[in-house]
């Protein structure tokens, strides 16, 4: 543990303990994001500190018997450290950027709470305030109306009828909404899908409408834990390896890629991607057309090729082919 991280924590720990006499060791450790063992070590350091001279009356007093016995902390004789140190720019920006991100998925009342919290933080931000003007966050989310309807339904425990756009088609779902989440810059609704009888995640920006059905939501037990990120969320068994020609090289950057290498002979990229939805792969291959080849597995391109042939047949049948 670097001493500067520890000093930073100690400077907040002293005023916290002065204003929370009898604080619980484990709970305080949680508040400060450290283990109880580390907090106990922090207290040992504080025990050796105080006013210059360090005569008995100068030292910070901590009842270590109470710490090791009852697990409660009594700290006194440190009135010169009754207030925490000002925020650093890093600290202010950590909170400000976090709040701005949460704001993008929040509904009206919570947005107003966030705005008032941001204003209060800015008032004490010091040097960080100026930099805060030069950092921005934008998130793929829904408009205010959808967010408000979803949040109201969650808070009041009501069932919703969603008009939801998957990449391929518009669907209707009945869901019991539970939580909105933010992952990788995209806002989601986590809800129990009555039609599928399971928990599902819906992108907020693809919800075209969300109307209450008039029925209260049922109890479906606890939400499954949130996925950690795209890699974990997409670790299904299906994978495809594509040869990406120059016009398709962006795919390796834009989509979550498990492995990418350059073919020394051609200079083309060989990228392996997870596939959770065959429709997604079909659309990607049709989009890239001549700039892509499927290397593995055999048959992975069949659906896309058939779709291209069907589309061409339809153009011809309607007299819209390239010869018209």
């Amino acid at each position, binding site marked *: 543990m670097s*001493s*500067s991280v*520890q000093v930073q924590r100690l400077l*907040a*720990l002293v005023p916290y303990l002065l204003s929370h006499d009898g604080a619980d060791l484990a709970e305080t450790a949680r508040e400060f994001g450290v283990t109880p063992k580390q907090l106990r070590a922090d207290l040992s*350091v504080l025990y*050796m*500190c*105080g006013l*210059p*001279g360090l005569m008995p009356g100068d030292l910070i007093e901590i009842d270590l018997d109470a710490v090791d016995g009852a697990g409660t902390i009594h700290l006194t004789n440190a009135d010169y450290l009754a207030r925490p*140190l000002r925020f*650093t*720019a*890093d*600290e202010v*920006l*950590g*909170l400000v950027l*976090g709040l701005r991100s*949460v704001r993008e998925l929040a509904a009206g009342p919570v947005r107003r*709470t966030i705005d*008032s*919290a941001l204003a209060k933080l800015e008032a*004490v931000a010091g040097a960080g305030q100026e*930099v805060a003007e*030069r*950092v921005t*966050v*934008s998130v*793929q989310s829904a408009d205010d109306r959808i967010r408000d309807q979803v*949040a109201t339904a969650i808070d009041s425990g009501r069932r919703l009828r969603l008009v939801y756009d*998957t990449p391929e088609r*518009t669907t209707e779902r009945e869901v019991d909404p539970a939580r*909105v*989440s*933010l*992952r990788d810059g*995209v806002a989601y609704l*986590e809800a129990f899908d009555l039609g599928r009888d399971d928990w599902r995640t819906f992108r907020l920006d693809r919800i*075209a409408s969300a109307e209450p059905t008039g029925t209260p939501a049922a109890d479906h037990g606890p939400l499954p834990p949130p996925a950690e990120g795209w890699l974990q969320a997409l670790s299904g068994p299906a994978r495809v390896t594509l040869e990406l020609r120059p016009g398709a090289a962006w795919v390796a*950057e834009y989509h979550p890629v498990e492995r990418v290498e350059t073919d020394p002979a051609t200079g*083309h990229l060989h990228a392996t991607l997870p596939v959770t939805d065959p429709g997604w792969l079909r*659309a990607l*291959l*049709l989009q890239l057309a*001549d700039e892509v*080849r*499927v290397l593995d597995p*055999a*048959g*992975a391109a069949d659906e896309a090729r058939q*779709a*291209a042939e069907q*589309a*061409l047949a*339809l153009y011809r049948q*309607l007299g*819209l082919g*390239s010869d018209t």
Partner: protein
Amino acid sequence: MAPRKSERILNLTICLLASRRFVTREQIREVVEGYRGLSDGAFERTFERDKDELRALGVPIETGSNSPLFDDEVGYRIRRTDFELPPIELDADEAAVVALAAQSWQQARMASSAQSAWAKLRAAGVETDTARITTMSPTVVAREGAFEPLWQAVLNRSVVRFEYRRPSGETSRRTLQPWGVTSSRGRWYVVGHDVDRDAPRMFKMSRILDQPEVVAGPDAFEVPADVDVRALSRSLDPAPATGEAVVAVRADRAPRLRRRGEPVDHPLPAGTPDGFAAYRVGYADEGAFVADVASFGPDVLVLEPAAVRRRVVDHLAGAARALAGAGERA
């Protein structure tokens, strides 16, 4: 050893904070535990390092003299008003959203900064029930390796140099005065003054190929007062439409295209299968639009203009040919 060092630095802080007068080096050496017994050289080095460390934490150490007559006798002190967090009162709802925001970071440095900021708020008397908000689960990420050095360079206004790969694939060495950072849909960008091109530029951090290297700084440049990072990052928004097409879309299909278009009363060719309806759709880039329409296969047909329709047909024919060789290694 870290605990000893922490003790010494905390005792130094208390010494400078508790004194109204400037405390000289000699006095500090005498009264602060941990400096006593050090040789002259070791004391100088240790004291300088400790001061730097405190300043890095944001502790404002003032240098000055108590006497206008003997101003060669330099001392140090920490002014309480500069040191202490000003009063801040958050109600329970505000505290709950701040706690949620503080916990949202998945990037190590920012997570630690946000945690430390939250600890200060708790120490300043902000109370909350951290389990108050269970209906929101935000996470903020920054996976790009360049994020941390660029963030630091923005904070202390250092000029950085890095190897950048353009979307076309060519790479070049860029020198940047970084003004700010922006995140769009989970991806991070740095905005600043490109020194060689003498113009504002934005760089996608995932296209930076090496660890950005500090070539000047800190405090190596001034950020122009009228810089609007928000406006500069607007180029990340979709470009305005410049072209327009009429497409026939199969019922319920291709929602992404339908939602951005508007239904139009346009005759469908004889023999069009049931369920198709016509929409007018704008686009910014014809090539991208052609590829986008093709991605929907037989669910979207371009009716007008004929030139765009011909491009879609050619694109689909190219796809059919390319995909017929599936499974064979080139």
